[in-house]
């Protein structure tokens, strides 16, 4: 059971992720933008962040970059509607550990998490 932080500006998406993850993991928090994601990460130091890219105030790639710089051993999976190769490369550069494109099916989410934080 991993401690997971969900960062997504869409309430609908947060609920969906919560529903998928709740069974096997401990969701320690939900935030709506990149600034909150970094703040909460520092407070809670969860095992995994499910990070959206397009968010208000600060996007998910910048937030990932900051988290990864300060906590190189942290785990971040981008979970986004953006399916652009250039963005994926930016995510790699920021240190993201995985990339899931929305809309997703439950098994693909579970599999991606298993790859990053094996239970």
């Amino acid at each position: 059971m991993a401690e997971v932080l969900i960062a997504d500006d869409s309430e609908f998406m947060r609920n969906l992720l919560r529903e998928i993850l709740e069974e096997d993991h401990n969701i320690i928090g939900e935030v709506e933008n990149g600034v909150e994601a970094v703040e909460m990460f520092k407070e809670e130091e969860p095992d995994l962040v499910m990070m959206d890219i397009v968010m208000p105030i600060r996007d998910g790639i910048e937030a990932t970059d900051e988290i990864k710089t300060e906590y190189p051993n942290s785990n971040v999976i981008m979970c986004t509607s953006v399916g652009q190769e250039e963005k994926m490369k930016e995510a790699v550069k920021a240190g993201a550990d995985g990339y899931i494109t929305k809309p997703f099916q439950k098994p693909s989410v579970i599999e991606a998490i298993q790859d990053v934080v094996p239970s």
Partner: protein
Amino acid sequence: MKIDVQSLDTFNQLAHEGAQEATRSMTQMTGIEATVEVTRISLVDRKDIGEELGNDAEFVGVQFGFDGALTGETVLIFEREQSAAIVEALVPGGMADESMAQSSVKEIGNIMMSGFIDGWAEHLGTSIEHTPPSYIERQGKDVLPEGPETDEHDQVFVFRSEIQWEGEDVSFYIYMLPEYTPLTELMAEHGSSGTDAIPIKKLAAFNQMNREGTRRAAENVEMMSGIETEAEVSQISFAPIEDVPKRFGKETHVGTAVEFTGAPSGFLLVLFDEQSAITVAEGLMPVDMDSDELTDQHKAAIEELGNIMTSGFVDGWANVLQRSVEHTPPRLVHDMGQAIIDPLAAQLGQHQRHAFMIDSTMKTEELEFESKIHALPNEQELRKALDDLDVDRADQTEADADRLF
């Protein structure tokens, strides 16, 4: 073959003035006041011509062939009920007699369309012959001619004018489908041959990219909502900027709007009619709401769906052009269609007089469901993006995350 914005504008205006001339003739003969609302040029897949007319509405009208500097087919069509009013205005009691009704429609069509064609010939300083009119009566998009043969992209230019009766919510239409080569040659001749010309091949390839983007967006809808959705049409149109909002009526729409930046920048809308919005939102939600009204939960679901559809659509541009296209988080809209578009058109209108608009439609067979995507790119940036477009990469719309992670 290249065309530029100047020649698109000239030809759009010609079609518009032709339609005005035709409408004036009708007003003189019948006393029915009508105005030409919108004229636009679209580049569209041949099989999608007239998709906006649906499959069921009954149309009557006249069809001509024309030949000369331009070659092709043109039609003037009325919805059947409206034709009755015109016939009655021309020949009181005329509707009682079927053949009289037909000959009235034919005659008025003949006079209107002569005005339409003559305007073109005059402006182009050449002659355009037309065949005698034939009376047509068919359903939906079948009322339109098939469209001329074209090159490997199988796309054609369609000129479409919508004419509306004063005080009524009814319209009739003039469609002109010129053969591709004479038209594009003529357009190339009438361009300013400046640096802003767009190779038509690239415009056609861009259209196909958008069709692919629409297909992906439709897949996303299906995956999220369980509603079997098919991408129907994708076309690119050109019109004066103030005509862009006119195409959206008073009906209430629900959806999302984003601003995108990159190459090109602009605005993108995902819109549903209210009923379709409820249908799709219900499909998205784990719990059945069974509500006839659009609730806040529905709206939250639509917002995320709009976000995902938007990405599905613009990602293809980014991947083909090998750069990134950013977009703002979606803003939910729920208002009169035209009022949703006009702020976006106005924002672009500060820097451009005309607009390219990309329109895509997706539908489903079993349910009353329809969704539309409309993109309004910055004109100059679109031209630049098209310039940079490598036609051979146009099918590389998808990126594979697994290759990178």
